[in-house]
């Protein structure tokens, strides 16, 4: 048996050599074909410089229309249907009427005419401020809590049932508790934002921590890194994408909730403004508010996407 294997060995050696030669031929072969292709391309370019320039502009125009046209058509369809729906009168104002109202409204967005009558700009800013404070505190509490929950299994076993119980509760159910504790409407609204935006941050951060690849943790163990180094060099960068997803979900929810919370608490804010305009029966202002809320939400989301892209590392 041993002898047989020995005898076959030089054969195996020869095989390796032939494979190598074949590999060499292949390489040169493909190189040659690449140069041929390049020459052809050059000829084509020389022959068609003029048409090329026009072609490029046309291509650019085509790409632009491909990217822009569908959304524009969609928007036009929406406005068209809206227009048709309002042809026979009824409570809903037509697109034209809404547009005129918007022009008036946005010509002076920052007027102050008493505590309950301020420009739409102030209302949006007031809402953003509440969201910012509530969301900021939620991030300060939720992200470290998420790290702790992810790192220590006991903690997550302890708190997961509570989180699962509280997470599906509508944020507005927390509003009375806020009113009771803070005695004022404004911090109660902020509290509602806090409580609704904390869960996605805790859960996503914790999930990120548990999903840090074992390889990286093995590296940490083999290199005998300190807890601080493990956190800054391995845990934090690995969890960052998950954390940013949590933050994005949170800020989306916060922006959803603020409108409802402000309707109930009053004061200055886009939610209260919607309710106030309903009481004034200025329906076109409500429609404008819907667009404004949507656009602000979109912008918040895009900003966070941008940040997420900035911090995401590429893994392969």
């Amino acid at each position: 048996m041993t002898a047989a294997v020995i005898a076959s060995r030089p054969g195996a050696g020869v095989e390796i050599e032939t494979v190598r030669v074949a590999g060499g031929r292949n390489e040169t072969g493909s190189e040659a074909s690449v140069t041929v292709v390049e020459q052809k391309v050059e000829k084509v370019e020389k022959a068609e410089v003029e048409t090329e320039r026009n072609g490029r502009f046309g291509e650019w125009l085509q790409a632009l229309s491909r990217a822009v046209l569908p959304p524009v058509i969609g928007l036009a369809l929406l406005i068209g249907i809206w227009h048709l729906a309002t042809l026979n009168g009824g409570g809903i104002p037509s697109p034209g009427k809404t547009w005129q109202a918007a022009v008036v409204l946005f010509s002076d967005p920052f007027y102050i005419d008493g505590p309950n009558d301020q420009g739409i700009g102030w209302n949006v800013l007031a809402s953003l401020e509440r969201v910012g404070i509530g969301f900021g505190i939620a991030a300060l509490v939720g992200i470290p809590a998420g790290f702790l929950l992810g790192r220590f299994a006991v903690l997550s076993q302890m708190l997961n049932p509570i989180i699962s119980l509280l997470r599906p509760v509508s944020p507005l159910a927390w509003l009375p508790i806020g009113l009771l504790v803070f005695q004022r409407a404004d911090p109660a609204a902020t509290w509602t934002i806090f409580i609704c935006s904390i869960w996605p941050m805790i859960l996503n951060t914790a999930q990120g921590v548990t999903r840090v690849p074992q390889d990286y943790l093995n590296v940490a163990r083999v290199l005998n890194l300190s807890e601080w180094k493990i956190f800054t060099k391995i845990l934090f960068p690995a969890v960052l994408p998950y954390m940013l997803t949590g933050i994005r979900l949170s800020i989306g929810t916060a922006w959803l909730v603020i409108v409802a919370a402000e309707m109930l608490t009053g004061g200055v804010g886009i939610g209260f403004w919607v309710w106030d305009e309903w009481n004034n029966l200025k329906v076109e202002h409500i429609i404008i508010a819907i667009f404004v809320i949507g656009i602000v939400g979109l912008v918040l989301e895009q900003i966070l996407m941008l940040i997420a892209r900035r911090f995401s590392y590429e893994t392969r």
Partner: protein
Amino acid sequence: MTKKIVQIENVGQSFDTKKGKFVALRDVHLDIHEGESIALIGHSGCGKSTLLNLIAGLTRPTSGVMLCDGREIAGPGPERAVVFQNHSLLPWLTCFDNVFLAVERVFSAKEGKAKLKQRTHEALELVGLTHAENKYPHEISGGMKQRVGIARALSMQPRILLMDEPFGALDALTRANLQDELMKILAATKATMVMVTHDVDEAVLLSDRVVMLTNGPAATIGEILEVKIDRPRDRLALAHDAHFGDCRAAIMEFLYHKQLKRAA
């Protein structure tokens, strides 16, 4: 006889699974001497990597004694550097920073930052990657990543280099290149090495002793083969070397005749 760096005495390792106790390794005896290169070979699932993890200190044996420099192996330590199969570089750090992380941990207590940086440069130079210092792992090829992994391990100036199928994920030509480079590095640094592999040629080419493991469960050392070929070794010359062929044949005999796996 040279000094023993690692002593493995009567070591066994078992894991608790849902189906009960699973014995991975039993009765393993092995001494690793200073400057020696050892290859661990066997069919997949035979516990090669388990044994390497035990030496690394990533897992603790359920029975027996493991010593490194006469002291019990209680956990991972910088004197036992590991090169992982899938390179395990941190994707958010450059090649330089990946190596620097290891250097900093081992030497920052005694040396200034300039010296630490110099050590990092030297380690990357040793594996021929000075030009890629500031690249991120996703910007370089698989072979280069594995070289950074080797540089990271070597930069700690370990007593012993533990490699878990370091070239398994690479194509044949890159693998041959890296094997040649590893031989040069081992010759230059006189490092001690234990390598897990399933490649018979790699085992013979790189090691002084080939440790063959029987099939799991309850795997143990079946045979130990001494490769008596002088260094530096030249892979082209060895293709026609009779002793190289004998060694290869003996390992193949062990793997494919004595320890043939039926349903693998």
